């Protein structure tokens, strides 16, 4: 009994185990509210944390191995013209909203073009908005459309 009472006291006055959500009411823009800088990450991210995916367009050689292993089919390839080698090649875009952060593509990539970063704040209202697609700018710039 006594131990229960002391527990209740501890829960009332002790340290909170979880982080309080940084805003009280739903803000106009969640992204702006979080970017405001009022919030510190809940816990320091351990090394090897599987968070936001990043892709290095210049390193990629277009081998397509990542496409083969991705369980969520979160990536899509598109044709480009490799000017250095002067032959057609492929590059990738990643749909973050579909990604399961399994790291399979990172392990399989022969040139280390894909990385999972410690960043975990990715919530967004638009599933297929530009900031939810990794590599979309490069695609707009370099994609070779049919008939070109």
């Amino acid at each position, binding site marked *: *009994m006594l*131990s*229960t009472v002391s*527990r*209740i006291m501890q*829960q009332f006055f002790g340290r909170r*185990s*979880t982080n309080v959500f940084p805003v009280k009411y739903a803000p106009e823009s969640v992204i702006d509210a979080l970017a405001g800088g009022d919030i510190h990450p809940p*816990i320091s991210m*351990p*090394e*090897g*944390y*599987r968070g936001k995916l990043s892709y290095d367009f210049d390193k990629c050689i277009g081998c397509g*191995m990542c496409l*083969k*292993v*991705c*369980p*969520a089919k979160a990536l899509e390839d598109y044709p480009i013209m490799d000017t250095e080698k002067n032959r057609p090649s492929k590059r990738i875009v990643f749909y973050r909203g579909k990604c*399961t*952060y*399994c*790291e*399979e593509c990172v*392990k*399989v990539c022969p040139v280390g073009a894909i990385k*999972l970063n410690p960043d975990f704040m990715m919530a967004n209202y638009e599933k297929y908005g530009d900031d939810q697609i990794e590599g979309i700018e490069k695609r707009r710039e370099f994609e070779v459309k049919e008939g070109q």
Partner: protein
Amino acid sequence: MSNKETYKLQIGPTHPAFKEPVRFEFEVDGEHVLHADIDMGYTHRGIEHVSKERNFIQIIYLLERICGICSTSHPMAYCLAVENAAEIEVPARAKYIRTIVGELERLHSHLLWAGVAAHEVGFDTLFYTTWDIREKVMDCLEVISGNRVNYAMLTIGGVRRDIIGEVAEAVNKTVEYYSDLYSQLEDIMLNDMSLRLRTENVGILTYDEALKLCAVGPTARASGLAKDVRADYAVNAYPDIPWLKAITPNDVGKKPVGDIYDRIVVRVLEIKQSVDIIRFCMENMPGGEIVAEPKAVKVINQLKKVKAHGIGRYEGPRGEVSHYDILDNNECPVGVKVKAPTYSNIISWVPMFRGAEIADIPIIMSSIDPCIACSDRASFVEGEGKKTVSFGELRKLSMEKMNKIRRGL
């Protein structure tokens, strides 16, 4: 009594007391439940079917999502099944790492369950306490695997990350934390008067019923049925642990009754057992490789040449989970069959509810630690959504399906 009418009480599919969609139809006489009927199928996702369109590596992450809590148990059973079919030898170190991750998962699952159960009886102080304690094991799993929930640690032929250096230190610290805390936890879970009053002699499943209804996991062990896949059909590092055995209430010198309190006893003792197993594994972990073939594409190509079938059995936190996979010279399996522990335990609800009071329905329901999403393996999409299939018919349907698979359709 004779002029009294009984009433039908519907609870579910969505109800604040239930964590997942399942529908019960209770026949009640006043405050007492006379009979319970269970209706499943509200959260069927067709995972087994989708698996047939994914290659062997992709499936691991799909199966991981059958259940958010058993996110190692399902891939474990699947990898064991594929390794069994393709005769892949898992390196010894990988076996130990698999065991450690599996036991950490059990630890977090049992603590989560303790919180849910406490919440169901209105003991929210205990709910906050257990979930607070549980944060430590979640953090440890995050350090090991890079994620709190979906660990993605297993792959066919081994594991994906090693436990060395700082990670090993984090595991050791977690083990110490729970060893120090255990006596407190045991005291509050087993000796608290209000918890005892709500759980003793409630929701009884006798030894004979457990045996007859093929109950598994802590539900069966609380009824005195000493069955545990870890001890009976040992895989991973379990065969190396000399003291490992199925835990029943006998271990605290209590005759098993099969009530909810006994289920608490078993799970609390298993928390200690898990901590001991992790410590054993950390002390005795052999060196060497952590995976038979690290290149995923090579594994897929290797499995493409296999025509065989394999079965994998593993003791998840809720009981035995088994997977059956059929490989047929293809990069996708032609058949994946999942049997989750709750599937075996659903029917045990019927005797547990018999004679119970309405107020005890939520705690009895959660006492088997159900995972509905795991067990929803079939759903009728034609007709009125309901059909009763006789034993003969079911057998015929099963044989037809098996023949279809054999013919490679």
